[in-house]
């Protein structure tokens, strides 16, 4: 699903409904993945299932899940000699079959995993990829040059939708800037500074439409650190090519944009942007709604702490016009 014409409702909510969103949180050993997940589980109101380790056989059973209050599941690896045995798929199927499926699935793959490759499992029926975040210890830039592990870490960074720069608080501002710059040379993806594992769940998991006030204009809603601004717009778009062109012009500070935009009666376009990666798909609008909701999340500009950046405002204003 999520491709071709499939039966989906018009609202963002119902788009999410039925498919479990999946966030992959990658990064090398010591990058702070576990702290981020722990913090998320502490603060979230959602039912989140967490899979630890990447692909492979499930070593869970009902009883083990029951013993773990927060649905943290440890996975065992599959085989690389032969990719035949892939228990990860079975794990996902089991999760989908849970009596009350989780509202979100977080996968914390092994420190050497290609997080984006793991994220491809989220394209299986019943799931959707909410994003691939890679945690990077900004205080350990030498890892990038390490002869054994450097290529692995660089590859993780290059393929990430969003970079979570951790342990920045341990650095002098000068060092922080120069080391963040090293990451920026590897990827155009937004870099989000993370202190003590705290990342707004809207950033990590995607826009929680339930929590966002929907109106037809723009509004700001400061979130806990790192400072993030969100905005929701409702409109009816023109044709798909115009929308696709427009979405690729999103300013670099846009972390996420997600929504459903009706185009003509009974049809609409599902837009999903995470970092620099966009996906646009045509879907059947069974609700017949006139307007869809489109939510944008921006990393707060330092010079404009109270609102969306000028660039994003202009971008939103330039969105393809309502159809006649």
């Amino acid at each position, binding site marked *: 699903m999520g491709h071709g014409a499939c039966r989906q409702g018009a609202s963002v909510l119902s788009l999410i409904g039925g498919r479990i969103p999946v966030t992959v949180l990658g990064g090398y*050993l010591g990058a702070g993945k576990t702290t981020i997940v722990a913090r998320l589980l502490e603060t979230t109101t959602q039912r989140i299932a967490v899979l630890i*380790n990447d692909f492979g056989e499930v070593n869970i059973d009902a009883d083990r899940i029951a013993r773990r209050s927060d649905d943290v599941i*440890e996975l065992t690896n599959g085989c*690389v000699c032969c990719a*035949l*045995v892939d228990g990860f798929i079975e794990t996902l199927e089991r999760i989908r079959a849970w009596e009350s499926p989780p509202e979100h699935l977080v996968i914390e793959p092994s420190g050497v995993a290609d997080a984006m490759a793991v994220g*491809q499992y989220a*394209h299986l029926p019943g799931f959707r990829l909410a994003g691939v975040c890679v945690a990077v210890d900004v205080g350990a830039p030498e890892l990038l040059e390490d002869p054994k592990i450097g290529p692995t870490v660089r590859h993780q960074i290059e393929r990430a939708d969003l970079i979570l720069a951790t342990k920045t608080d341990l650095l002098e501002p000068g060092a922080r800037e120069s080391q963040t710059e090293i990451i920026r040379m590897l990827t155009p993806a937004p870099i989000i500074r993370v202190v003590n594992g705290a990342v707004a769940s809207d950033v990590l998991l995607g826009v929680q439409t339930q929590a966002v006030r929907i109106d037809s204009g723009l509004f700001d809603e400061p979130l806990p650190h790192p400072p993030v601004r969100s905005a929701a717009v409702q409109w009816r778009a023109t044709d798909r090519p115009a929308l696709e062109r427009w979405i690729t012009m999103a300013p670099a500070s846009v972390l996420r944009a997600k929504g459903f935009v009706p185009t003509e009666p009974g049809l609409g376009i599902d837009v999903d942007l995470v970092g620099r990666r966009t996906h646009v798909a045509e879907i059947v609008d069974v609700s017949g709604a006139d307007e869809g909701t489109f939510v944008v999340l921006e990393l707060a500009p330092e010079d404009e702490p109270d609102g969306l950046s000028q660039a994003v405002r202009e971008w939103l204003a330039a969105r393809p016009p309502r159809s006649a």
Partner: protein
Amino acid sequence: MTNLTLYPARLIRTLWTANPEANAVLVDGDRIVAVGDRDSLAQWGEAQIDERFADKVLIPGFVEAHCHTMAGGIWGQPYVGFYDRTDPKGQRWEGCQSVEAVLERLVEAEAALEDPTEPLLAWGLDPIYFPGERLNRHHLDSVSASRPMFVFHASGHLATVNTAMLEQQEIGPDHPAEGVPKDDDGYPLGELQEPAAMALARPGFLGILRKLKEVGAMWDFGYIARNAGVTTAADLGTVPEQEWDLWAAEAAHEDYPVRIMMAARGHVGDDAALAQRVIERMGNGSERMRFGIVKLILDGSIQGYTARLRAPGYLPQADVENGLWVIPPEAMNDTVAAFHDAGLTVHCHTNGDEALDVFLDAVEAALAKTPRWDHRHTSQHCQLTHPDQFRRMASLGVSGNLFTNHLWYWGDQHRTMTVGEDRAAAMNACRTALDSGVQLAFHSDAPITPLGPLHTMWCAVNRVTPSGHVLGPDERITPSEALEAATLGAAFQLKLDHEIGSIEPGKKADFTVLDDDPLSVDPMAIRDIGVWGTVLAGKAHRSSR
């Protein structure tokens, strides 16, 4: 009334230095009582005489110390690979040496399916041998436009499907997944890369996975082992822990034709807890189901450019910086120590030389912390090992289970595509290993290459590639050394050499029954020796070949 059975044979190679050759072996139930000259065995009193091996050659039962039991279940679907191969029932499948041959095989298989909705699955395709046009959905559509099809490649990393499968599973132009290459019009070509993409073709990929878990697959594995003359086989970490009991239940049948050593897969959760569970299992193993070794996978494969190499790495044409780690190198010390400290044996997949360095560092650290004798930790594949590494392995007491079948199956590709002539000549360097004092075995990694110790021996002895090139002739070993590696050597690595691996009084009556003597035939004919079957714990199992 005696229970003794005397088996006269044309020749018995015992692998017991004190009595290396014999012409009869005396068996009591599942045990060997004596071996030697037929007349000399009379001192044990009366015995029933079983003449069925009178014109055969008996050797200790072959031990395959690294394969995967899915080698049985994969035959749940038709074979479309390049080389001839024999299925568990003993049927020879001719290799499909052209795209047309692949399609012909599929047409036959399609015609054999009665239910028009049943997907057609096949396995073993290796496009590396068809340098022209790559198989895509259009080729498969010519076999069937309506029945979903899924052709699984030999590498295990790719599959090709037809348009009916794409449509049924809604894998269209909009599909966001990686690993779904599209044609110029944006429509999927039909190739699905890596498991996440292959799984999109659910009836195909999951259908194959499901068949691997069926009871029939467990027996098919036993038959494949028996047909190759293997009496003990180690599954190196691909049977998940929750399925061990299912395997144990089948292996408990008196007729089950092979002993299985089930390796646990490490670094997938709490290693110390896993070690304890393995130790518990060791206490209640059975005749044909054993535990006690742990598999780790540290890097990838050489032909897939994912093995971790020391400098200078892969040939420039490969255009890769280096391979992939499966376990973070920094995590290796803790992981190896967890199993080492618990008294278990670690078998670590290390294809590349850099990966081997990391494993040896971890073993050395574990030994420094917890000195331990006779641990028998083993490097698996161990393919690009340098002389310095063999010397270090010997001094650390690390065994080498070399992947000699690579010399034949990918030998020419290694010369020209992966590491180049000089390092290809040094691959699977059995001579250097033995001369360095490294304890040696070799393996097939079935189903990656066909299970068959005579073939792995043949590779170690001849080092010939399909193009007729001899890879590093000075690394060849003698047939006698090769036979030891395939029996006693592999048994040692599984810590079973006190029970199996040689024909010696008190050991299990496990024999491989051959039509000819691997030590006196032309070395190039070793792989062609007929396998009558095996004797496992005193019970004969006739090959179905």
